[in-house]
C-alpha cells in the first residue's frame, strides 16, 4: 500500500512531466489530450464536492458544464461578429477575454445551481438523481432548439480567447493555464475538506440528524456545496469550450453528466485526487482503446464493471487502501 499523499504527488508530477516530454518530442497532440484530461478533472473536482463531501449524486452536472461552455460561446460569438449580447436593459458586449468569460461562467452556473439546488434538495436518494437528470434534459432540449446560437450545430469560435500575457493558441501555454486552474481548484477543495464547512458537510452526508441536533441546517450545507460544486464545473465548461473552440448541446447531455461522474468513480469518490486520476485514466483509455477496436466501448464497459464490483474506492482505493484518518 502506497500512501495517498505520495500517489497524489506522483500524479501532479505526471501532469507536469508528460507535457514537457511531449513538447520536446514534438507531440503537440499529447498536450491537447492532457489539456482535455485536466479540464475534465476540474469539472470532476467540482462534482466531487457535491458528491464526495455532500453525498449528492447529481446526474445533472452537465447543466453547469454546458452553461460554462455557452457563456464562453455566446460572449466570444458576439465578440467575433461585433454584435452586442443584449442592448436591453443595458448594453452587454461580447468579449474574448478569458478572465471575464470565466467570471460570467462561474456566476451563471452558481445561479443555476442555486435554483436547481433549492428545488432538487426537497427530494433525496433516487429522486434527487432523477430530478437533477430532468433539469439536465431541460437545458439539453432548450439548447438544441435555441437557433440563435446554433441549435444542435453549436457555435464555433475561430480563435481561442485570450489571457493577458499568454499566447493561448500555443498548446503548452493553454495547458499551463488549465493546470494552474486545476491546482487552484484542488487547493480549494483540499482546504474546504478540512474547514469548518467541510467538517459540517461531511457530517451532513453521514448523519443529517446529528447535524440538525447540534443546531445546523444540513440542507443548507448541502445547498451551498451544490452551488460551489456547480460553479467549479461551470468554470471547467468554459475551459472545455475554449479547448475545442466550440460549444454544442452535447455538453448538456446526460451522458456528459454520467462521464463526469465516471471520472470520480474510477479515481475514487471523496478522494482529493480521485477526479484527477479518473479523468487521466479515462482520457487515456478513450484514446488507446479507441485505437484498438471499433468496439472499444465494450472494453470500457467491462473495465468500469470491474472497478465497481471489485475495486472499493476506485483506483486510489485499490492502490492506497482506505483513507487515512485526518488529523
Amino acid at each position, binding site marked *: 500500500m502506497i500512501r495517498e499523499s505520495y500517489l497524489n504527488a506522483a500524479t501532479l508530477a505526471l501532469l507536469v512531466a508528460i507535457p514537457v516530454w511531449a513538447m520536446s518530442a514534438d507531440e503537440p497532440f499529447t498536450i491537447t489530450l492532457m489539456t482535455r484530461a485536466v479540464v475534465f478533472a476540474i469539472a470532476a473536482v467540482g462534482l466531487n464536492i457535491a458528491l464526495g463531501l455532500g453525498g449528492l449524486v447529481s446526474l445533472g452536472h452537465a447543466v453547469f458544464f454546458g452553461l460554462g461552455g455557452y457563456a464562453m460561446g455566446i460572449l466570444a460569438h458576439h465578440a467575433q461578429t461585433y454584435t452586442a449580447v443584449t442592448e436591453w436593459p443595458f448594453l452587454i458586449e461580447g468579449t474574448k477575454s478569458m478572465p471575464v468569460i470565466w467570471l460570467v461562467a462561474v456566476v451563471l452556473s452558481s445561479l443555476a445551481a442555486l435554483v436547481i439546488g433549492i428545488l432538487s434538495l426537497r427530494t433525496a436518494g433516487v429522486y434527487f438523481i432523477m430530478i437533477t437528470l430532468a433539469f439536465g434534459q431541460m437545458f439539453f432540449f432548450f439548447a438544441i432548439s435555441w437557433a440563435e446560437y446554433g441549435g444542435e450545430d453549436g457555435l464555433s469560435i475561430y480563435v481561442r480567447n485570450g489571457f493577458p500575457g499568454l499566447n493561448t493558441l500555443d498548446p503548452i501555454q493553454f495547458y499551463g493555464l488549465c493546470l494552474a486552474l486545476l491546482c487552484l481548484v484542488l487547493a480549494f477543495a483540499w482546504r474546504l475538506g478540512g474547514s469548518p*464547512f467541510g467538517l459540517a458537510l461531511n457530517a451532513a452526508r453521514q448523519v443529517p440528524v446529528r447535524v440538525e441536533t447540534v443546531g445546523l441546517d444540513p440542507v443548507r450545507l448541502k445547498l451551498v456545496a451544490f452551488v460551489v460544486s456547480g460553479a467549479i464545473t461551470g468554470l471547467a465548461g468554459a475551459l472545455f469550450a475554449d479547448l475545442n473552440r466550440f460549444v454544442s448541446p452535447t455538453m448538456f447531455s446526460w451522458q456528459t453528466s454520467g462521464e463526469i461522474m465516471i471520472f470520480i468513480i474510477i479515481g475514487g469518490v471523496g478522494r482529493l485526487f480521485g477526479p484527477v486520476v479518473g479523468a487521466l485514466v479515462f482520457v487515456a483509455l478513450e484514446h488507446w482503446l479507441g485505437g484498438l477496436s471499433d468496439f472499444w466501448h465494450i472494453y470500457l464497459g467491462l473495465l468500469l464493471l470491474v472497478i465497481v464490483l471489485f475495486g472499493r474506492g476506485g483506483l486510489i482505493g485499490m492502490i492506497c487502501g482506505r483513507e487515512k484518518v485526518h488529523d
Partner: protein
Amino acid sequence: MTDAVLQTKGITKSFGALRASRDISIDLKPGEIHAIIGPNGAGKSTLIGQICGTLKPDAGSVHLLGQDVTQEPTRSRARAGLGRTFQISALAMEDTVLQNAVLGALGAAGKPWRFFGNALKDKALRETAEEALERVGLQDQARMRTAELSHGQRRQLEVAVALTLKPKALVMDEPMAGMGSEGSKILTGFLDKLRQEAPILLVEHDMDAVFSLADRISVLVYGEVIATGTVDEIRANTAVKEAYLGDEA
C-alpha cells in the same frame, strides 16, 4: 417552585388509528433528572421526537426556557440550548472522535460557513471539543475513527457531543442501552453530577439506573402518562404496578 426548563402542554400525536401521544404534559425543572419509563410501544420515542422537533404534535405545545418552540425545527431548539443523545448512535462513523466533538462545538458557535482554515486547528472549537471529550473520558480516543469505538464509547461520545453545546436541558434516549454493568455504573455517576449543570429528561430501560438517578419519574403507557412522582411514590403506585410491572407486583 422554580420555572420549568422544558415543558410539554397537552401534546397529542396520532399515526392513523394509532394514538401515540395522548394529552401529555410533563416538565423538567432545573437541577433534576426526570425519568420517563414505560413498556415497549408506550410512545416514548414519539414523545422525544416531539420534544426535540423531529415530529410535530397534532395538538398541544412544547416550551423551552419559557419560549413556545412547537413550530421550531430541531436545529432552532438545539441552538436555544436543548441537547440530545440518541438511542442508536447518530455519529459520523467515518470521522474521528475529535471531529464529531468539533462538529458539536461548531454548531454551538453557529459558524459553519468558513471555507478556509482547518476546523481542527481552530483554538476555540478544539478547546470546547477536547474539554467535552475529557469530561466523558474519551480524551485518549480522540484520534480514533468513530467506527472503531466500542459500543459504550460511542454512548460516551454521544454525551460529549451534547455537552459541547453547553446545553440548558438534555434529552437522553436510553443512554445505558447495551452498556456493560461497569460502564453503566460510570455513566450513572457522571449523569448524577451533570444534573446540576443541565437538567436531564431521561428515557431509560435500566431500572437500577432509573431508581438510583431519578428525582422524579413519569410512567407512560399507551401514549398516556399514568403517573408522575418521586421514586418512592412510583414504587408505591398501584396503577403503575398493574399497567407496567404486571405480574411482578
